[in-house]
């Protein structure tokens, strides 16, 4: 991809002010300050959350930067809370099913959009992109009503379906730009050798597109895991509630005695899978996020 290629040619560092010393092999001092500022800005708030989650009782009331008596009691208590473990399971089922369905259906559509010649391509792509910008509220109101009527209110399937509204267009859009990157020659060769377009797709394109599929999968999974409006609107009990809704429900119940220890422990726990994804797939995620945005 254009961006990936460009990463290779890292432009020479440009100094921000006239007076800054020309870098002579080393990094100028202000650069370290800028880097430190970015790291603190991005990581400190989350550290604060971790810090709180390791405190209990009276310690929660003070604002020390380190837990005076670090303990894992809060983590123990949330994993013994069946509402929370149920919510984790619900989230996993919803996010994985939504992602799998979006990739399965979306990859065919994306391949056709990237490779085959037919009418209304521009229209379809514009439609797909515009749906990713839909406010979820526009479908939450009618579904709230409709799901109660047909009996899938407060069920996992009742959340997987509307999550697809956003996951499918997102997957299609990312996949189209990845399919476009695959050199046409291999496919052409397969076609010349007598393969049909479908066989060329299955045997040549899909294996080559594996990194793109992974990227689309990761981004779709994270988007679905994070989804909140539908989750809170279309569920009414722990049976179907995914984690974001479950946590908001803990906090929302009482204004005064908020169980911060367990809530922060739960918050850290559900963030860990996503942070791990980011650690392992940083390059792919950045490529996917910027895929649609920079070229053009």
């Amino acid at each position: 991809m254009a961006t990936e290629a460009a990463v290779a040619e890292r432009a020479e560092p440009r100094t921000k002010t006239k007076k800054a010393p020309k870098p002579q092999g080393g990094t100028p001092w202000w650069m370290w300050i800028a880097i430190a500022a970015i790291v603190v800005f991005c990581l400190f708030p989350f550290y604060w959350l971790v810090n709180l989650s390791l405190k209990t009782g009276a310690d929660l009331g003070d604002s020390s930067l380190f837990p005076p008596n670090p303990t894992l009691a809060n983590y123990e208590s949330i994993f013994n809370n069946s509402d929370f473990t149920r919510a984790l399971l619900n989230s996993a089922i919803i996010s994985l099913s939504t992602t799998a369905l979006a990739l399965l259906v979306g990859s065919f559509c994306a391949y056709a959009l990237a490779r085959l010649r037919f009418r209304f391509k521009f229209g379809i792509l514009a439609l797909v992109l515009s749906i990713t910008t839909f406010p979820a509220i526009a479908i939450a109101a009618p579904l709230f009503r409709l799901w109660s009527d047909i009996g899938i209110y407060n069920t996992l399937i009742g959340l997987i379906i509307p999550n697809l509204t956003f996951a499918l267009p997102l997957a299609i859009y990312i996949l189209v730009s990845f399919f476009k990157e695959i050199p046409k020659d291999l496919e052409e060769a397969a076609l010349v050798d007598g393969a049909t377009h479908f066989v060329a797709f299955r045997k040549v394109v899909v294996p080559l597109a594996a990194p793109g599929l992974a990227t689309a999968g990761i981004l779709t999974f994270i988007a679905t895991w994070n989804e909140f409006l539908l989750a809170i609107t279309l569920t009414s009990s722990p049976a179907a509630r995914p984690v974001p809704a479950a946590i908001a429900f803990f906090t929302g119940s009482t204004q005064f005695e908020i169980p911060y220890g367990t809530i922060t422990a739960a918050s850290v726990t559900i963030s860990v899978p996503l942070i791990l994804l980011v650690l392992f797939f940083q390059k792919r995620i950045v490529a996917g996020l910027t895929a649609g945005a920079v070229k053009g």
Partner: protein
Amino acid sequence: MTEATANTGAPQERRSRGLSEKGLAFWMVSPSMVLIALVAAYPIIYAIWLSLHEYSVRVAGLSRWAEPFGLGNYQAALQNADFWNAMVTTLIFTVASVFLELLIGLAMAMAMHAAFKGQGLLRTVVLVPWAVLTVVTAIMWRTIFESPQGFVNQIIGGDTVWLGSEPQALIVIIIADVWKTAPFMALLILAGLQVIPSDIYEAAKVDGATAWQRFRKITLPLLTPAILVALIFRTLDALRIFDLPYVLTKGANGTTTLSLIAQETFATNRIYGLGAAYSILTFITVMIVSFTYIWTVGGNIRGLAED
């Protein structure tokens, strides 16, 4: 518009085996289109229907309209001060957070671009706020601002009840949003920075341009498309803001946004018609910006649609 000039170029014989190219395209695209029609188009059409058919006064007790349809819900919505307050709150939130995100994102991107060491590490660090769930972001900032455990009051030595005061609550929401999405903005801008060829800078340096001149005359103009896309993208996201105010304040103290008032109306108060009308009005507001977006990235989409 479409590049569907199937009669040029490619050899025709291979189509005799299996499906024709257009036939295959049809079968590959239709499952997605059918699914999109079911999960996106149908609910929105149903929302419009609800907003036109189901009349309900703000007092509970729903009654259907006798007439085939009416604009009563929209009239009620547009005459409601709560709706306009939500609109103003949403707009203030959008403008303030997107502007701050742009500034901070630009600064972060410039620093990351200039850093020769640890760029990969920085990009991972920067992705952390993006990966933290919005709900968790809300809880995190709540613990930072709320006494007794929050340290903000301790640092500034005040005793402001941040989430319980009128402009402060919205400020906390803006800060939380800026934290979560400025890094994302930085990554988009960084990607834009990296496609600027470095020889342009070399040439400018040779010609004696200062760093500031190079930033003003080369970086900014060449970065404008990337910034524009990032801006509109973020604006669209900000306009539908729901999670942060819902978790932080439930809309109290001047933090009710468009999505929040709509959700409250139909889900909490069970006034479906009016709630649907609010939803559609939010939808229209977002779509106006969305069309600007798609128009801006039109070249991009056309590039993807090309053969």
